[in-house]
């Protein structure tokens, strides 16, 4: 599969995401925020970083980048889209995902190897994991507190739209320990921790993040 990785001004983890895509067995295609062109990709990753300097709100300006019109359109047609960290914030600002991400409740940047539980392995990004599987990948954010109103929270919990949940401790004040969510259709996934940093033994905390990038293949042939 061809997986597009969008680079915004201020993206940090786009090259890591491209690398993870290749290690996961897919072809990485670099996409540029200013081009309204998805170059024929089959799936899209919005990487981590500080796009547009996090000005206004994290992801608020990126949402209106020319490429995002195409991403929103493709997501609506069912294309798998994964937003990691800043990418998750962009997806929430685009209203492709429910809720929003606000400053960590303790107001400090957090960087740690974080234990998670995969709560939904029915998405194209998580199908390589067992339901309930525990994985440890790096978390690094200043504005990673997931919030939503009570009705939305109840709905996404009830509909199984929580994709991953923090274990051991809640690192940023996210409601219900939510680390990642998906849309109603299940093709768009946002995750605050960084699976692309856990795909090789040499660097990172292990290989626990690889599943996010191998799931696409399994999904295609499933």
């Amino acid at each position, binding site marked *: 599969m061809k997986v597009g990785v969008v680079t915004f001004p201020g993206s940090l983890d786009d090259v890591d995401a491209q690398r993870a895509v290749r290690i996961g067995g897919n072809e990485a295609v670099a996409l540029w925020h200013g081009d309204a062109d998805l170059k024929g990709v089959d799936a899209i990753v919005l990487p981590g970083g500080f796009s547009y300097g996090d000005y206004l709100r994290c992801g608020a300006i990126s949402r209106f980048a020319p490429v995002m019109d195409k991403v929103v359109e493709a997501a609506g047609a069912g294309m798998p889209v994964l937003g990691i960290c800043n990418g998750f914030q962009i997806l929430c600002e685009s209203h492709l995902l429910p809720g929003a991400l606000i400053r960590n409740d303790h107001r400090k940047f957090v960087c740690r190897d974080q234990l998670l539980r995969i709560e939904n392995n029915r998405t194209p990004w998580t199908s390589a994991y067992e339901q309930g599987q525990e994985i440890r990948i790096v978390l690094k954010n200043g504005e990673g507190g997931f919030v939503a*109103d009570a009705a939305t929270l109840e709905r996404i919990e009830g509909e199984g739209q929580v994709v991953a949940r923090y274990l051991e401790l809640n690192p940023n004040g996210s409601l219900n320990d939510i680390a990642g969510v998906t849309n109603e259709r299940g093709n768009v996934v946002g995750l605050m921790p960084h699976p692309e940093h856990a795909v090789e033994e040499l660097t990172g905390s292990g290989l626990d993040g690889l599943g996010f990038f191998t799931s696409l293949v399994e999904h295609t042939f499933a």
Partner: protein
Amino acid sequence: MPKPEILDPQGKAVQGALPRLGFTGVTDVRQGKRFEIELDGEVTDAVLAQVEKMAETLLSNPVIENYTVSVEQ
């Protein structure tokens, strides 16, 4: 402004600093944003509707924030 039910860590930080400076009796602080937008010509209903649209689509995130628009001539 952040909606009342949304945690405002920045406001909490300010609230925590005030007693240290000797300001007492503050029970809550919420921090928001203010945009000053200069417009050409008369502020008609159509122009105001456009500003409302700006507020709703870009300047605020309706999931976590409320906004008000006021006109100063």
